[in-house]
């Protein structure tokens, strides 16, 4: 600090100064002398990234302390690539001592003579802006100074890239899932479920405990939103608050889990992870996927039926391999298995678009599918290893192509099938026969229709020609039989004078309007009737393997498909494959290769370290606002460590032991003491745990976009409770806002002014609204509707003026406020206090206090007075607008938008 510089935060400066002193001198360019270098807060690397051990009293070892630093900063140029820069390989301590063309890089015992240290400390290496941190430099210096020790003799060659160090293999999430003992706690009286004991043990260690239980109105609203995504009705609240039986809460939980809305709510979470969309994405064309909804419906059904997750995952990864070939005459169960593989078809796919560069687009589909699968099920960002070994996690580039090989028989980029070619008809053989018969019939009808039309045309000509003099008749016949291009000027003139000479199917109506009207109607009816015999189309959007020889999978140098290298066999990531599970390249017992099926069974065999942990962490996230691991899509070294590792393991093993049943897990979580706490903050707890990782209270959460829209419909009473089916269409309106409507724009995108009424479809739950990648629905988008590129691991929850403008002025919101007021007026009668109470309970799920009712009534009165243009105005004319304003304020309020 130069003297006299105002410094507003002395305490911060002091603390920052201390940290700076700890971090040691920052190397690199020296200060210019204008003023002191700014004090350095700790570097911005992501919290939880603990790969870099802090220098400490203990002996520094290459494998544990130094290798991760070199791997992140040096390996790509000095080791991994075909040409090793300067001849220096930095992957083994021994090779550092040996050095490159410039000589030894490390002189054990002497950092200042070590070229490696000198160059990184001078900021010359690595060449990019990302230099080593002060702490990393100090580790390096200390390690060299202490003799550059290794933990054990080093392997012969660094090129055995799959041989990770023990330190890398020791990352917590790669370890087998254990079943930790449930801890004993002081407040046993607050333990309803084992999860309470795990949470409480940590809170008690900090001198804290659970908060008090929330009141019943709060609890039922929390449960309704968590389990169904809809607010409780006043009747449901009444029933619950009046129910004095000891298991009232548990009964409510069971009722909600049994309701069809449960499946709609929880399917939405999984569809985010799967990247569900009703369009292809990738290019501006963003073609529709008319059959994607079958997968959405399958997921809703699976949740409602409480399908065990091991089966659910196997079906989504390899359902096609469980269905006998050819995929004909399927039972409903078999059809579901094909539809389930829609999971692997959810990523953007531009290969059906005309403007896409084919090889790039194809390989992109495969990359996106791997990205979705790995973040969803493994919780790892495997995608990083597409071009080079993963920088932070022990995932090699070979590993990446092992995973790719799993999908290769179905996604063969050299023998590609477009989205349309991948559709499989779900028709039974009988339906196929009926369709074929109907098609034959339609074809025959079409022929007959044409023949009759030809006859009418001919008879029309004959009738008209007969009216001409004889010689002219001959000319007329000649003109008619002459092809138009060969007609002489005289013939053309004749034609202009006698248009009937050119009569054909298109123009015959001008000469015999009545006849044609009768003809058209009769045939249209006949064809429509015959068309009815044809069963409606039913397709599954699924992933299947094409018959024929299996394509080889090559590693692509730098991820470039034009640079194929060695062939790679299918398999699990090597770091996860302690047991050495084999994935067959071609299972002789199956008509398919069996690769995905074997992989799916390996993932769900109960011994996989990641799958169950990743799943229960997601389920936890949706109940408690954040996961035990707060990076649900990254369980690698760059992700956050679990806040409660034992609890996570206990949950994962209990989940598997309980048959992978989700409803059982829901019960466990929502019936706990932890879940029933209030969300009230306590200052002592806040000070200790500002991010509420210890869960000494429940969080206050904002509703998601879909839940806000669905709740508006619930409050107005207009929600259409119809399950399943094709999506409700969306279209841009004239102002450019995407609304729910049939798209009636013409071929060049201009509005035609046509309007197709949708009826009650318009008011269905948001999960049934078409999810078009380029056209997010205007009432959903501002509330953090995720861009699906390709999937969403976790929703954001932002606060922006666009959200406020939406709640204030959007036509849908205003419409619902008005319908809501109608409903209140109808059900509550004219008494303002009664209206106020009912509206409150419908929108916010609880009973207003006396003061709140008084305030509401005062608002309604004032509003009526303000709306009264003159003393003679009838009360009814001013009452409803006032009530609408009131209802509007309620649904725009934080009490509506947040759940405690």
């Amino acid at each position, binding site marked *: 600090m130069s003297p006299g510089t105002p410094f507003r935060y002395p305490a911060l400066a002091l603390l920052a100064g201390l940290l700076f002193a700890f971090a040691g001198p920052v190397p690199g360019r020296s200060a210019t002398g204008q003023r002191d270098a700014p004090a350095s807060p700790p*570097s911005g690397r992501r919290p939880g990234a603990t790969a870099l051990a802090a220098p400490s009293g203990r002996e520094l070892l290459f494998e544990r302390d130094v290798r991760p630093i070199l791997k992140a900063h040096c390996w790509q140029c000095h080791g991994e690539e075909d040409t090793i820069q300067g001849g220096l390989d930095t992957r083994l301590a021994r090779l550092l001592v040996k050095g490159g063309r410039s000589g030894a890089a490390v002189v054990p015992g002497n950092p200042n003579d070590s070229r490696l240290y000198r160059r990184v400390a001078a900021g010359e290496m690595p060449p990019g*802006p990302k230099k080593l941190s002060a702490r990393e430099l100090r580790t390096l210096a200390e390690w060299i100074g202490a003799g550059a020790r290794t933990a054990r003799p080093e392997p012969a060659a660094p090129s055995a890239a799959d041989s990770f160090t023990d330190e890398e293999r020791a990352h917590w999430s790669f370890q087998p899932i254990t079943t930790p003992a449930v801890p004993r706690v002081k407040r046993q009286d607050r333990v309803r479920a084992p999860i309470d004991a795990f949470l409480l043990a940590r809170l008690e260690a900090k001198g804290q405990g659970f908060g008090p239980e929330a009141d019943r109105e709060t609890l039922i609203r929390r449960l309704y939103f968590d389990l169904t995504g809809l607010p409780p009705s006043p009747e449901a609240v009444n029933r619950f608050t009046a129910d004095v039986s000891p298991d009232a809460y548990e009964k409510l939980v069971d009722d909600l889990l049994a309701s069809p809305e449960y499946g709609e709510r929880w399917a939405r979470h999984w569809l985010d992870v799967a990247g569900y969309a009703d369009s292809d994405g990738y290019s501006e064309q963003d073609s529709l996927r008319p059959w994607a909804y079958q997968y959405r419906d399958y997921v809703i059904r699976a949740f409602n039926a409480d399908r065990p997750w091991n089966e659910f995952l196997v079906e989504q990864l390899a359902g096609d391999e469980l269905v006998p070939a050819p995929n004909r005459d399927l039972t409903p169960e078999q059809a579901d298995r094909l539809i389930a593989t829609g999971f692997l078809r959810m990523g953007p796919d531009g290969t059906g678009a005309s403007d896409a560069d084919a090889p790039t687009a194809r390989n992109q589909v495969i990359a996106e599918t791997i990205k979705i699968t790995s973040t969803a099920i493994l919780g790892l960002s495997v995608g990083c290893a597409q071009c080079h070994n993963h920088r932070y996690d022990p995932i090699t580039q070979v590993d990446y192509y092992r995973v790719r090989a799993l999908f290769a028989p179905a996604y063969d980029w050299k023998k590609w099938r477009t989205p349309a070619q991948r559709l499989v008809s779900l028709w039974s053989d009988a339906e196929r026969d009926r369709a074929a018969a109907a098609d034959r019939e339609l074809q025959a009808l079409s022929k007959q229709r044409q023949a009759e039309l030809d006859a009418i045309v001919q008879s029309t000509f004959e009738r008209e020609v007969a009216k001409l003099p004889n010689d002219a008749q001959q000319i007329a016949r000649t003109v008619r039989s002459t092809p138009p291009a060969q007609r002489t000027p005289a013939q053309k003139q004749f034609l202009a004078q006698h248009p009937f000479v050119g009569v054909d199917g298109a123009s015959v109506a001008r000469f015999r309007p009545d006849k044609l009207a009768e003809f058209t109607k009769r045939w249209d009816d006949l064809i429509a009737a015959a068309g009815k015999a044809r069963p409606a189309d039913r397709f599954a959007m699924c992933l299947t393997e094409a018959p024929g020889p299996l394509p080889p999978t090559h590693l692509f140098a730098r991820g470039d498909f034009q640079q194929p290298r060695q062939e790679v066999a299918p398999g699990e990531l090597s770091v996860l494959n302690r047991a050495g599970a084999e994935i067959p390249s071609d299972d002789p017992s199956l008509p398919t290769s069996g690769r995905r099926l074997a992989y799916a069974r390996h993932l769900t065999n109960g011994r996989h370290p990641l799958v169950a942990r990743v799943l229960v962490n997601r389920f936890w996230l949706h109940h408690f606002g954040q996961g035990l691991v707060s990076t649900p899509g990254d369980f690698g070294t760059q992700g956050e460590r679990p806040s409660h590792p034992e609890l996570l393991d206990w949950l994962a093993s209990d989940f598997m032991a309980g048959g992978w049943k989700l409803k059982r897990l829901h019960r466990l979580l929502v019936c706990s003491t932890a879940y029933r706490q209030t969300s009230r903050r306590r200052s002592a707890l806040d000070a200790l745990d500002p991010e509420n990782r210890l869960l000494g209270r429940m969080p206050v959460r904002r509703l998601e976009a879909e839940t806000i829209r669905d709740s508006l419909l619930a409050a107005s009473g207009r929600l259409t409770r119809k399950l399943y089916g094709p999506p409700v269409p969306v279209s841009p309106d004239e102002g450019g806002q995407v609304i729910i409507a049939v798209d009636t724009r013409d071929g060049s995108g201009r509005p035609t002014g046509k309007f197709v009424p949708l009826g009650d479809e318009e008011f269905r739950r948001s999960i049934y609204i078409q999810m078009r990648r380029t056209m997010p629905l205007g009432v959903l988008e501002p509330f953090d509707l995720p861009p699906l590129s390709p999937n969403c691991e976790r929703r954001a929850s932002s606060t922006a003026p666009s959200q406020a403008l939406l709640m204030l002025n959007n036509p849908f919101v205003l419409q619902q406020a008005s319908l809501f007021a109608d409903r209140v007026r109808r059900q509550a009668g004219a008494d303002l206090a009664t209206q106020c109470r009912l509206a409150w309970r419908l929108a916010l799920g609880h009973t207003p206090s006396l003061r709140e009712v008084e305030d509401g009534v005062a608002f309604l009165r004032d509003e009526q007075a303000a709306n009264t243009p003159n003393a003679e105005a009838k009360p009814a004319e001013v009452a409803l607008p006032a009530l609408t304003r009131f209802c509007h304020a309620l649904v725009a309020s934080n009490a509506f938008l947040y759940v405690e």
Partner: protein
Amino acid sequence: MSHFTRRHLLAQSAFGLGGLALLDLLRQDGALAAPPKPELERRDYDLKPRLPARAPQARALISMFMQGGPSHLDLFDPKPELANHHLQETKLRFQQDNTEQASQKLYASPWKFLPRGECGMALSELLPHLGQVADDICLIRGMHTGTNGHETGISAMNTGRILRGRPALGAWFTYGLGSENRNLPAFVVLTDPTGIPVLGVENWQNGWLPSLFQGTVIRPREPRILNLDPPAHLRGAPQGRTLAYLQRLNQAHSARHPGEHDLAARMQSYELAARMQLAAAEALDISGESAETHRLYGLDHDDSRDYGTRCLIARRLVERGVRFVQIHTGNQTWDHHGGIQRTLPKVCRKIDQPGAALVMDLKRRGLLDTTLVHWGGEMGRLPVVQNEADIGRDHNGQGFSMWLAGGGVKGGLVHGETDEIGYKAVQDTVNHYDYHATLLYLFGLEPQQLTITRPNGFGSLLDGQPGQVVAKILERPPSPA
């Protein structure tokens, strides 16, 4: 106070300032003594104007972000050596993004460079309008991030690190300084009609700063802000009464949930939204600008109309006290891997005249002194041929150019150099840390003042990186200690 009287006058006359905001402004001008007491940690976040540690030179920033990597070799950085060795092989090893199409053939710019302005700054013939303001801009030819990817480069230039997930510059500056206009968002983003840049919404994210500080996107087409207009029967008093009741509800709700920042931020966002209904429509309406101004920004040409309109809107926003405006080009607009001879002139026709007009217009309105203008992307391009069939240039984060104007930066200055073929920055190198340190200095912010508590310590824009204020380009550089 004279240097920004006009800004305040406009803000005041058009929308009327509340007493509180006026107090803040007076305080900021030093007209009232005693700045607010230092707080250890801000518990409630708002967008009220805040006093920086030192007297600021710049009060607003307009960043024209050129995503894709504009070719400095064809626009800003003439290299006679390339002409001397045109299409000759070089032995230098370049970090290539697309190895398949990479070559070692040097490629001279197909365009001429001419000295412009009194300073004689050499600029490409592709930027004739920029030449007219050469004496007002500071061209930095020694930019360096060292990273060659779009994502990493954007993150570096726009958030301070090559990592993802950090707060964008605009979020930092509004967090540190608030806004001088209560009626408009403090951090406004103007996106291109053809799409949003690489990294999408991350370009204006608040990262780990409170959500109040995230950028507000103004749509590239009308209606530029959705849901801005209430229906006629609600306009004015009826909506005002509903809002007053809504805020009473929210206050009572908030009182039951002390410490929930999100609830308070949402209450503020309703207030802002309500004020925006009037102010934003007025600020975004360019129909009152003179015909001469329309022509100045190139609104009479198809090529430059869209971009010119957005530059003009940016000026109107800054004039009204918006702190940070970022104008984006489309997705990979500048990513000329191939066909550079065809495509680069087209992009220049889109942005050249509007960008120059912005500098001229700010200057003649007396706003340039306090408004910093930035023009640049996430990297430059290589001096060698990529894709011989249809020549382009590959990525280059080792050396590239950008320019700044106003806000305390010297005009008519060329700062820094790349090597003789324009590959690496070699003289007076400026990296993203230096750029950000300079921004902080110009806005009167001490790097350590701009921090936020994070679970593992503090987060800040520089986060301890060795960024140096680029003193040579400043009108009033920091005095030596």
